[in-house]
């Protein structure tokens, strides 16, 4: 791999100058053709179809290049690059080398590929976003392709992520990616781990660290505890935790570094939620995103099974959807009716204070028990286990039954007044970026619901947002938690709960079974709400602990 990376410079392709891209591509073409020639002259034997990969290091290197090229031919925002990469692949194939093909069905396993925007058919605004993203990272990842349903949000998201990972900040670059890996590994999100392992190595990280947290510097190891708590039980974070991190002699964190780390951790926890929630497929150029095997007759392979993307299964779900289409039609109607009712009779039947308080407690307690009954998901062998053999990296099942989550009152510590000021003080500009992102996510609406137009969805969005915060024990004094029960049905609650707490357990069935008549873009929208609400909840707890430490 290293060999291949050294000779080929992919970064030239990120240029906005088409001439520069042209030259870079030409270089790549030559390198690849040279390698191919080399390989052919050395081997002279036809390929055995089964183990083409194990042959030689050079072949491995070439395959990596080809996979990258394949990714470019599908995902590069620049048309010229896509065409040229495809052309190179073709010419390689003509030389008798097996070329890879993408696996799976587009960027998401849950959303049919045809629903998702094709690279090349985007409008000018989206193209600008794609080009920015591509220029910054040298790739257009599947997350971006799914999020582009909501370009306004995507812009803010990419800006924030770019700032967190690449711009001025107290932490060195490889630390940032490593923290990203730590956070994603907490949820066994192999997709994010793979991406950031590459980035981590690219910015000069020590590959030894990837063998497990115990190989990383003590300073990062100390962060493990906070990572664990933040991901699963943020309400347990106390100022003692913060103190331990800040006063560890030579391994201690500075406040600014800690805030940077906390923002990164929460960002990646919630991004892992998004990855699972939208069923993001592996990147084409990463392991599991492509195959060198020729398409088999019955279109059946192991990977398709494990990621639940087998076409037969999809058909089943679709047919199931068709059967209940009238049911789900009423679902939307009923939901809208409820919203109308709530809007109208809010003033009439005023619940007593005690009842309001108990409604919150009930919702909080119930959210503990909302768990999907289907535990039939096959856990595929994951890349993560290679990097993090350490058992503490496995998901620790906190028994939630009967667990008491203390109430956190937003009126006493909220993001706008307190969290923002603290973050912006210790990690300038990031507070502003995250604040914008929260705002966009919270206020995003197209005033549509499924097939209905001109609907005020603010009530529904607020219910979702507050339900997530409620699961974290965060209470809004001015919210009637009875509304949640009216607006969010059980299957939806199961989905929310799973995504926020144990995203790795999300299945396509869950994704399909809630809000059946809603569009995919609306489900992605829900996911955006979920991840931002989760991020804010985690941040609130962490920042409150930091504030308490400081006072």
């Amino acid at each position: 791999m290293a060999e291949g990376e050294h000779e080929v410079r992919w970064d030239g392709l990120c240029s906005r100058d088409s001439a520069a891209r042209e030259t870079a591509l030409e270089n790549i073409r030559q390198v690849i053709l040279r390698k191919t020639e080399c390989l052919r002259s050395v081997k002279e034997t036809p390929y055995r179809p089964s183990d083409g990969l194990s042959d030689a290091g050079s072949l491995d290197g070439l395959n990596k290049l080809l996979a990258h090229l394949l990714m470019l031919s599908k995902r590069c925002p620049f048309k010229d690059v896509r065409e040229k990469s495809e052309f190179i692949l073709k010419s390689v194939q003509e030389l008798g080398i097996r070329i890879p093909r993408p696996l799976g069905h587009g960027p998401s396993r849950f959303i049919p590929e045809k629903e998702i925007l094709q690279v090349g058919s985007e409008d000018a605004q989206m193209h600008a976003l794609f080009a920015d993203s591509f220029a910054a990272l040298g790739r257009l990842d599947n997350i971006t392709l799914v999020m582009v349903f909501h370009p306004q949000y995507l812009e803010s998201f990419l800006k924030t992520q770019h700032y967190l990972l690449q711009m001025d900040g107290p932490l060195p670059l490889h630390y940032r990616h490593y923290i990203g890996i730590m956070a994603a590994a907490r949820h066994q999100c192999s997709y994010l781990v793979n991406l950031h392992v590459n980035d981590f190595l690219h910015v000069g990280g020590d590959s030894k660290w990837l063998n497990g947290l115990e190989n990383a510097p003590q300073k990062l190891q100390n962060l493990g505890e906070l990572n664990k708590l933040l991901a699963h039980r943020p309400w347990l974070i106390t100022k003692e935790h913060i103190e331990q991190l800040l006063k560890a002699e030579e391994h201690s964190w500075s406040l600014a570094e800690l805030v940077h780390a906390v923002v990164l951790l929460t960002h990646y926890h919630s991004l892992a939620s998004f990855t699972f929630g939208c069923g993001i497929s592996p990147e084409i150029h990463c392991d599991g995103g492509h195959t060198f095997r020729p398409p088999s007759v019955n279109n059946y392979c192991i990977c398709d099974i494990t990621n639940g993307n087998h076409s037969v299964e999809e058909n089943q779900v679709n047919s199931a959807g068709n059967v209940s289409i009238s049911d789900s039609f009423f679902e939307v109607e009923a939901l809208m009716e409820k919203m109308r009712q709530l809007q109208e009779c809010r003033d009439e039947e005023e619940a007593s204070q005690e009842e309001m308080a108990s409604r919150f407690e009930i919702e909080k307690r119930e959210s503990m028990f909302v768990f999907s009954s289907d535990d039939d998901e096959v856990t595929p062998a994951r890349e993560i286990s290679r990097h993090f053999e350490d058992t503490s990296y496995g998901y620790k099942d906190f028994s939630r039954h009967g667990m008491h989550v203390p109430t956190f009152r937003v009126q006493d510590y909220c993001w706008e007044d307190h969290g923002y000021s603290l973050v912006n003080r210790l990690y300038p500009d990031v507070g502003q970026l995250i604040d914008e992102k929260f705002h966009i996510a919270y206020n995003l609406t197209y005033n549509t619901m499924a097939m209905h137009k001109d609907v005020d969805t603010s009530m529904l969005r607020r219910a979702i947002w507050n339900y997530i915060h409620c699961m974290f024990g965060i209470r809004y004094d001015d919210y009637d938690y009875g509304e949640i029960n009216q607006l969010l049905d059980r299957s939806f609650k199961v989905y929310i709960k799973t995504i926020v707490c144990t995203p790795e357990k999300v299945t396509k069935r869950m994704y399909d079974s809630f809000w059946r008549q809603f569009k995919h873009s609306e489900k992605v929208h829900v996911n955006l709400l979920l991840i931002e609400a989760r991020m804010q909840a985690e941040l609130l707890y962490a920042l409150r602990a930091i504030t308490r430490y400081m006072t």
Partner: protein
Amino acid sequence: MEKMSRVTTALSSSALTGHTMHCHLDAPANAISVCRDAAQVVVAGRSIFKIYAIEEEQFVEKLNLRVGRKPSLNLSCADVVWHQMDENLLATAATNGVVVTWNLGRPSRNKQDQLFTEHKRTVNKVCFHPSEAHVLLSGSQDGFMKCFDLRRKDSVSTFSGQSESVRDVQFSIRDYFTFASTFENGNVQLWDIRRPDRCERMFTAHNGPVFCCDWHPEDRGWLATGGRDKMVKVWDMTTQRAKEVHCVQTIASVARVKWRPECRHHLATCSMMVDHNIYVWDVRRPFVPAAMFEEHRDVTTGIAWRHPHDPSFLLSGSKDSTLCQHLFRDASQPVERANPEGLCYGLFGDLAFAAKESLVAAESGRKPYAGDRRHPIFFKRKLDPAEPFAGLASSALSVFEMEPGSGSMSWFVDTAERYALAGRPLAELCDHNSKVARELGRNQVAQTWTMLRIIYCSPGLVPTTNLNHSVGKGSSCGLPLMNSFNLKDMAQGLGSETRLDRSKGDTRSDTVLLDSSATLITNEDNEETEGSDVPADYLLGDAEGEDDELYLLDPDHAHTEEPEYVLPQEAFPLRHEIVDTPPGPENLQDKADSPHVSGSEADVASLAPMDSSFSLVSVSHALYDSRLPPDFFSALVCDMLRFYAEQGDVQMAVSVLIVLGERVRKDIDEQTQEHWYASYIDLLQRFCLWNVSNQVVKLSTSRAISCLNQASTTLHVNCSHCKRPMSSRGWVCDRCHRCASMCAVCHHVVKGLFVWCQGCSHGGHLQHIMKWLEGSSHCPAGCGHLCEYS
């Protein structure tokens, strides 16, 4: 009404006495408010709602308004206000969106009077009308303000801010119908209470939420606002557009602001996060607070002046569950701790110092610097008699100017510009620099350069240097192009920003190259020259001593002249120096194929002629047997460098360091080198010698320094039509879909080099503008401006 309050003032202010004191509350406070008679204070919080009597020595709990076994959310107060006319009337804002009024005159234990449940979200603020008994105003998170008449069961009118949550509402004290409201999005609105349909005026006061506002008690038009952006601003609202008259920058977001009674320019602030102190500011001196109260251990949430006409008592409640009374005379005054002395050197050797007037006055009798040729000039700020702490932190400023001629630093600028640092064989560099120094009358430096050449090079090269000399001088022809930008570079930049990944110096080199005269390549390398000198002792006035010193010093160096020996590959280390510098930002690689010739290519080009000199060297090398090892003198040379640096002549130290490169670098520790580089670059930049400083940065081998010109290489461009940033490309705006930068001559889009006139902001292709201005002095756009192009 006003008259009446004046009367009460006169009566009570004489009676108002007390100490700085505090009392413990059971729970954190969210807000406090004072009764009209200044004898009672109400404290409200999530789980506290009590009235305390302020007595001489202590606070005494008078009444607990939180009654009932099951405390409801209606009692969880975000704000509380006491009516300033009716001492029985209170109002609270609850976090669940309820507005409650309380009547202390009720006989029962529960004093709750009315309940308004009209707001859907938390109510952030309540406010009574200053002179109307029954009018109450509330502002809520749901973006609405409601006006209640307490004689009715529901609101009289609702005002919609048309935006996010309302953070504060305040009735104007002077204008009966007016109130101000502040919003989370940074806006401030002014409303007429009779017109709920739209606000009278609106302006953006802060970046981010405006948490609080307060009308000036005396000055009709003044409104103070405080925001999350850590600023307190004072607005004059009498003018057509709200005008910012004062601005105080604090260290944390501003949660509350309250004008100090009877002190026209004073206001008190407290913060919501991190900072626990209460500050009293004089808005005219926005940098140092006039007074500071440091009693609280957690953030202060409520402040109130005890009496509307007594400036010395301040009450405060805090998250640390204490209620405090602060006495102004007990406040700590940061000014006392301020250091009123200061000393600064000007760029051209002027010296200014500020000191306490008492000190200056004492010394003015005798002449402090006898025999000094420089005349001190005294400045004294005219003191405003109204200013309260005039005597506390004022100082007299004295400035000593250098006499024209003696103090000029022109030698520094000259040497910096004319020195050659790289791009030629060492011997030539030394000779050139020595000549430069001699021409400027700096013989010691000239001598040093000569010696360096003798130490490290063969003498056979001398004649060739003189040739190169003139070439080096000619290079200044590149300079006029400096104003132009390299738009081409920007267009190729990555990410949402367009970048100029080259520093100015390079940009110019590109332009030179575009002119496509190959000979200029070498010029470009030479033109940014640097020099060395002895600034420090110059400043101290012993300039005359310099020449004599030369010989005093020389024993050190004298014997170095004898052995003439040659260092073999003298040409190459110089080249390596450039190649060695850490790689630029990634996008540098993108450019490898762009039409510009990058620096390294230029170097390759100039390597060719040097081969000949190399052969010369090798010949001489054979002649003079190297009896002494190459680094025999390095210790000596290092001492010499340190000497110059200590004398204050970092110019010399750095120049020699660059010219000698590898030969001495290893003998001086990294940190010292870095320090020299940093000081020299700083000096260069003070003299606006950007090109030279950039060359030094480029040639430096220390990592910390060479990354300097890779920082902030982003150039942001805004569209000339819609004024918004252009994100993707530098020449076309995504929003208004127009090409922002048109050439005024050919009316085509400029994608490459763009030159603007700074007077009329028209411009276009560099070549076109140059050609145009040869024939005409008017702007090509026809705006009538007489453009200048230099």
